[in-house]
């Protein structure tokens, strides 16, 4: 090994240790999913129940509800977080004045840094009965709506606020990629008579494809994650039917009700599905956009 590469390996070392300690070692804990876990007996001595926890999980009337909620909310966020940053980046790219572009980039990126604990306080207040939204619709003569308790509004609010918070990050990536498209291609397109939408289709989007594909593929693996942080801070019992996701259910069942085995089983199933999705998306990205890691 040359001395120069040793530096790189050493730099990676803390990260690898962290990964090992917090992601690989805890994997042994999945054994809890197959046991009737008793904290006093520990992982090694709790009675083995095999697939009972999984069987039970499918019998619960709620299983369907939480899976549906998770997929719907995460799916909506996934699509929105693909489309919105892309459109925004394309629009922002047309802006000619330099300082405007950069300051707008910074402004849309800022919410990314706020934690959901803070944001949820703000959101709950904005949508409360005395909040701004209800005041505005009151001016239009509409009766105040308790948005955060409504099963019709909860999902849109969750998806909307998540997009508002996160789209800045992806926008910056797309903007950077857009600058990477050679102006020669634009000139060639202009010569060939392409205009507006034509340019968009044949030059811009094609040029962005190598950026869009991996981002989309990687977020597909995240689809079952639906953002515990956000939902936990925003939900309440009235919106359980549309807002209770796998992670919040696991939290209540596992930690509050101390049904560790069942909760771990659900978490394990979720990870297994996510694993399949990541492999699939990776293969798709490799095939259609030539994106490979290995």
């Amino acid at each position, binding site marked *: 090994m040359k001395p120069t590469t040793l530096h790189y390996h050493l730099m990676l070392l803390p990260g690898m240790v962290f990964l090992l300690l917090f992601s690989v070692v805890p994997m042994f804990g999945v054994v809890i999913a197959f046991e009737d876990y008793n904290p*006093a007996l520990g992982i090694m001595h709790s009675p083995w129940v095999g697939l009972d926890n999984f069987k039970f999980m499918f019998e619960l009337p709620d299983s369907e509800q939480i899976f549906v909620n998770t997929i719907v909310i995460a799916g909506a966020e996934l699509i929105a977080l693909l489309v919105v940053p892309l459109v925004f980046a394309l629009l922002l790219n047309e802006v000619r004045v330099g300082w405007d572009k950069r300051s707008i980039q910074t402004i849309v990126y800022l919410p990314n840094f706020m934690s959901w604990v803070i944001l949820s306080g703000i959101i709950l207040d904005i949508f409360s009965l005395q909040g701004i939204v209800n005041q505005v619709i009151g001016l239009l003569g509409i009766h105040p709506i308790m948005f955060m308790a409504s099963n019709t509004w909860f999902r849109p609010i969750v998806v909307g606020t998540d997009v508002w918070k996160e789209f800045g990050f992806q926008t910056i990536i797309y903007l950077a990629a857009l600058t990477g498209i050679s102006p020669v291609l634009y000139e060639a397109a202009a010569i060939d008579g392409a205009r507006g939408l034509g340019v968009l289709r044949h030059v811009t989007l094609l040029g962005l494809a190598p950026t869009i594909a991996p981002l989309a593929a990687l977020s597909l693996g995240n689809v079952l994650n639906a953002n515990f942080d956000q939902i936990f801070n925003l939900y309440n019992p009235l919106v359980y039917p549309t807002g209770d996701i796998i992670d919040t259910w696991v939290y209540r069942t596992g930690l509050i009700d101390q049904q560790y085995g069942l909760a771990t089983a659900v978490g394990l199933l979720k990870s297994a599905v996510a694993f399949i999705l990541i492999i699939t998306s990776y293969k798709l990205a490799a095939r259609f956009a030539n994106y490979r890691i290995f």
Partner: protein
Amino acid sequence: MQVNYQQLQQLVAADQVQELGSTYQQYASPYVKGLYANNQSLQVATFNGKLMAIPDTQIDYQYNLLWVRKDWLDKLHLAPPKTLADLTKVARAFVKAKLGGPATVGLTGPSGTSTGVTPGGGATALTAPNAPNGFDTICGAFGAYPGQFYTSNGKVVYGSVQPQMKPALQALHNMYTEGLIDPQFAIRSQADELSLVESGKAGMLFGPWWIPGWPLITSFTNDANADWQAYPAPVDAKGKMNVMGQLPSGTFLVARKGYAHPEVAWKVESLDNDAIRQLDPVAAKIYQNLGVPWTAWPLSIQIDRSDAVLKDYHDAVNALKKCNSGKPNTTAAQDVAYVLAHCQSIDPAAEIGWYGNIDAYLKRKPEDRGLDVWPGYTDMMLGVAAMANNLRRIHEIYPLNVTPTPTMKSRMAELNKLEELTLVAIVVGQQPVSQFDSFVQEWHSLGGDQILKELQQEAQS
């Protein structure tokens, strides 16, 4: 280390804890033994005849009282409420007169977002008993005890599915639709809900005797006219207030099996108690002036008489009659010092801090009664007094000491979620009150029946 009852059972079943009964007689101080003689905590920690832990005492008389802003009542010339109809009338008047501003709240509600569910128990956010803002005493006025497993006529029942809950939910729903209860109680956190009280927007709330310490003190800070009074209300048709009491113990101090010196636990507990109650001058000096609260002392768990709160009240009232420094405008600490030095007739084991507070409060002019003495006075002389002077009005029952049965372990989370969702939705109006009947059926068929059977077997064994 300290564990709850469910954990204690798991540890005893796994044979991981040291037996402590053999060292009890020899090493526990007479004072500690006297405390245990007054309550049933030792029985709870005894398994197969052996004492396996040092149990704490969950002091009784923690049920919710109705706290009302007397200054608002006076402004509207209303009498303090006694029945649910009175309560509704008062709330209506408060909201109509907008005494707390345009968004006046008559009565606050329990937070829908609190996740303090008792492990293995049935209580959900709406039904957790004796929590600030809770509706459990309103349900009690109909004879219902939601969220609790208890025995009725020898049978184990679950409060939330009893038929008495239906009229209770109807009443709550009516109050809600009329706008008397905070419309957003379900989506607010407990702190947010209590901020309504603190900022002077709410006129009534339910809470135990100690809420003047928090959050009422903030209300008093913001508005010196906030005159909070406690009433044992609402009463049912027979004039009785139905409440759920405390289990004798909830926290247990356990020692690892094979621990070499189990008597150390008893020695430390005895020392802790001697020091806190100022029984032993040497012990009392250990943490003196170091600002360490007793909850942070080593191995500290709360051991006391189960009626400690009432006893303190009576002690305080007696002491006030017998012992008074006569000097106006003293601090609570000065009063305590005076009492310790001059009043030997006062029961030395009593909580002297209370006299100090109350005495100082009473001696000062109304405008000088500041934050250092107001909570102590209000806690005891208004909160506890409402209970102590109305014992005949109170009808208290006790919950079952529930250890999670196998079906509870697998089904309770599900049932809790269903209960929480349905009860809150009915009160708020998202589901009709008739939905209660289908909820009861579903609760029974989803595993509730099985749970009740198992608890019945356990209770009879």
